[in-house]
Each structure stands twice: as C-alpha cells, then as structure tokens.
C-alpha cells in the first residue's frame, strides 16, 4: 500500500538550535500514528513542518505521492490535511454552528462566493449538523465557542478540522489540560474517527494510556532525533525509550 504521508529526513533549525534532526516517517492510509516524546523533543515542530506552518530547513514532505515541501499551509488543507493546535485555535466570538459552517463552506469550495443559494445553504447546514452530531456538540450548536468548557472547545476545534473532510487529521495533544471524563470522551471520539470513519490520524499525545489505547504505531522523538518506531507493544519494551523517559542514568 502506498503511504499517505511521507516525511524524508526533515530537519528544522532555529538559529543554532536544531529542533528536529533528520527525522523520517511514513504513515499508511487508515493508520493511527502517535508521536510521543519528552518535553522539547521537537514533536510540535515536526507537526508544524507537516502542516506547513513553516518549511523544513532540509528534507522533504510528500503527501499522497506529491511533494508538498514548499506548498503553503492553506493549500495543504485543500489537498486534504486538517489540523488542530496544542493551544486551541477557534473563533471564540462565533457560535459552534458558525465555527463549523466556515470550515464546511471552505471545504465545499464556496470561500470566494459573495452569495449562496438556498440549496447550497441547506446542504451546508446538513453537513454542519452531521459534523456536530459526530463530535457530540449538536446540543451546543448555538452556544458561543468562547463560552464552552475547555473539553468542548477542543471538540469544537476537532469538529472544524473534520468539516474540512481531511484525508489526514493532525491532532496536537487533543487531551492536553483535560480532566478524566473529558479525556475519555475525546479518546472515544478519536477512536470512532479511526475505526468507523477510517480516517488516517497523526497525533501528538502526552497521556500514555490514551496512546497505548489508540495507536496502531508509535513514533518516539527525543531531543529532535528519531528514537524509535514500532507498535505499542514494541515501544513499551524498548530500552532506548525507557531510558529517555526515565532519565539517561536508568
């Protein structure tokens, strides 16, 4: 099977700091891949190169057989990448419905339309409602996103990314800062997207229970380097990973 995403020897330097050094990764369609690593491992930097937040200093990124190393971020979205951020990025003064509607209209190719017909409008509304049902937000559709709980804001951000109908969903620490119940709900949502919707997902996560529960494969970064890659079982017994997490002395 051809890979949906391939990162080849990506390196990112910020001045003299090498945030990510020669990391390669290949994600197959339908796979749920987790990226883990201690703080400062370069996980988010790596993510930002994939989603086009900035370009790698060297190396290349291939999405669905197409080199996108220098493709601007918004075009990567059009090609099929949707992402969320470690710190939730939403439209706080708009309602949940309005937030997801903007995504949906862009995905439907309406972003430059100075008008929208009744049929198209209804079609958009149905899509928004489907996305809200999928993410469990339908009851909160008319609430301002800025007034929702942290967990619901994260869900709303995932809903916005989903409304883009991505082929690859990039989630940057979807359960960051959440309590038990919220973590469980987001985990269930990600599992449904993976199992039921057959979505290819790449996620960064800190919560080990979440990862070992969800991931098909795990990539471990440490101080900008690729430390290990494998199934959850392989990673759990990997000595290099254990020493990175428990300290070099161990």
């Amino acid at each position: 099977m051809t890979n949906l995403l391939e990162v080849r020897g990506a390196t990112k330097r910020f001045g003299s700091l090498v945030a990510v050094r020669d990391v390669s990764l290949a994600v197959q369609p339908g796979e749920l891949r987790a990226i883990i690593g201690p703080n400062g491992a370069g996980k988010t930097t790596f993510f930002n190169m994939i989603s086009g937040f900035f370009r790698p200093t060297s190396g290349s990124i291939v999405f669905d057989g197409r080199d996108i190393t220098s493709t601007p971020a918004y075009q990567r979205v059009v090609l099929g990448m949707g992402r969320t951020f470690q710190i939730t990025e939403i439209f706080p003064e708009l309602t949940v419905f309005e937030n997801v509607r903007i995504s949906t209209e862009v995905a439907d190719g309406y972003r430059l339309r100075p008008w929208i017909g009744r049929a198209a409008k209804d079609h958009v509304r149905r899509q928004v409602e489907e996305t809200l049902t999928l993410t469990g937000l339908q009851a909160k559709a008319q609430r301002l996103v800025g007034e929702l709980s942290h967990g619901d804001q994260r869900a709303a951000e995932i809903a916005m990314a989903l409304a883009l109908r991505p082929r690859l969903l990039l989630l940057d620490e979807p359960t960051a800062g959440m309590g038990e119940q919220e973590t469980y709900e987001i985990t269930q949502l990600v599992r449904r997207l993976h199992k039921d919707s057959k979505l290819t997902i790449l996620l960064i996560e800190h919560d080990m229970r979440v990862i070992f529960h969800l991931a098909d494969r795990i990539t471990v970064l440490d101080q900008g380097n690729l430390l290990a890659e494998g199934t959850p079982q392989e990673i759990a017994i990997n000595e290099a990973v254990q020493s990175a997490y428990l300290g070099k002395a161990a």
Partner: protein
Amino acid sequence: MIVSADNRKLAGLATIWIVLALAPYWMAPLGGYTALGTRILVLGLAAMSVNFLLGFTGVLSFGHAAYFGLGAYGAGFALKFLAPSTPLALVCGMLLGGIAGAALGALIARRRGVYFAMVTIAFGQVFYYIAFQWSSVTGGDDGLRNFSRQPLHFGSATIDILGNANAFYYFVLVCVALAVGVMGFILRSPFGRTMIAIRENERRARFLGIPVDRHIWLAFTLSCFFMAFAGALYALVNNFADPRGLHYSQSGDFVMMAVMGGMRRFWGPLLGAAIFVVLQDYLSSVTVNWMSFVGVIFIAIVLFFPRGLLGVLQRRSEA
C-alpha cells in the same frame, strides 16, 4: 427565541430606514437642515466602508481617506472634462478610487497590525501630496472647482438634484442604500464569513484552507470601492473636491466615527458619523476649537463604552 431575535432585527432595520426616509421632515423642526442629513449619509457610508475592513476583517487602514478623495476627484474630473452626467461621475469616481485601492492593496495586504496601518498612511499621503502639488490638473490647495452635479434624466422626466435639497437627499439615500445593501449582502455570504474568520483568528483561518493575504486584499479592494463611491457622492454634495479629503487626518475622522458608533455593529459607523457631523456643525459655530471637544467626547466613549454607542444600545435592548 430565534424567531424573536429575527423579528427584533427586522424591526431595527425598519426603524433605521423609516428614520432615514423621513429625515428631511423631522430634521428641520429639531434645528437641522436637509443638507446636514445628506452629509451624514455620505460620511456614514465612508465610515461604514472603513469598518467593512476594520470591524469585519479586523484590519485597520489609516489611509482610507485617499480612496475617498480619489473618488471625489474622479467624479469632479468626469463632470468637468468628460460629460455633464451625474451617474457617469459616480461611476468614474468609484473606478478611480477602487482601482487605486486594488493596486495598492496588493502591496499592503501582506502587512499586519501597525505595519499595515503605517503603510496605508504612507500611500494615502502620496495621493494627498499629488492632489496638493499638481495644481494644473487638481487645482492644488484650492481644490477642484467649477463643476456641479447635474439633473437626472429618466426619459422625459427630469429630477432637479442641483437646486432641490430634498430631491438630492433622496438621490443620495438611494445611492447609499444600494451600497449598504451590497455591503450587507457580502457580509452574510461565505466570502463575508471568511473575513470574519480572519478577524477572529487568522491562524485558524489559514489552517482551514483560507489564503488569508488574498482575502484581506479582496476585502481591502471592496472597501476601497465603497469608499470611492462615498467620495464621489461627497464631490456631488459640495460641487467641489478638496485635497484635505485625502489627508490622513480625514482617515482618522472616519476611524473615529466607526469606533464611536461601534465597530462590531454593521450600522454603528453611521451613528458615529451622525454624531460627528452634528457635533462638528454645532460646535464649529460656537468655537474654532471644536475638534478638541469632539476629541473629549471620543475619549469618553472609548473609555466608558468600548463597544461603541450602538453596541451599548443593542446590549441594553437585549438584556
């Protein structure tokens, strides 16, 4: 609940249009005069054009008077050198300012925040000095004179908008209604919603697949067309185009009107313009330092009603 919110919106709209449509009749008893109403409409449209960018895209242009002034000169040139036709003058003014805005906007749209504001001022001042210095064409410091708006001809019927102040008011009202209608229509469209997305969170907008710079350029260009249309109307109001209409202090006045009335409200800038124009009309007959009083009132509004007057009024009525 949703129905009642819609009803309230409709009632509000109806009130605005009735008040505007009857203005020549209620202004006189209150000590106003029709020409004052005409000025409010035109400057209100200009402030709404600035706010199209400021309030709905979140981008502050401090040089929008340039496109207002270009619209005025465009209308003046057309009446003076092309043909004695009011509609032609409006079209020429709108094209001159709008096309200039599109061209410069392409250079400006990548800048953000303070840099955007500074670059817009700089370009605006370029036009001001051109109008000021190029006396043989623009009339220089004296402004462009010796043209006047022309009566409208509809087949055999003629409407005298030059001599009849009320007829001219209604002509301007129709023009402003058209422009405001188009503006409102755009803001309720998918494109309009991408503008609001950019205002709310530019990073999120980009990662939803919106090419932000291009959308800001489009919003800037549209706002310049509206602005130039208002400028062309202003030339008809005064039968005169003034280089000071291009100056950045004029841009500042428009921003002030928008902020006083309420940037997040569609109609806010019109209210702001009404307050500004009435204050100017009244205070300037009392003191030459009228601007310092306007300044004090502006500061008070910003301090106590940061959402602007219309923002406060609507909040009260919803509560």
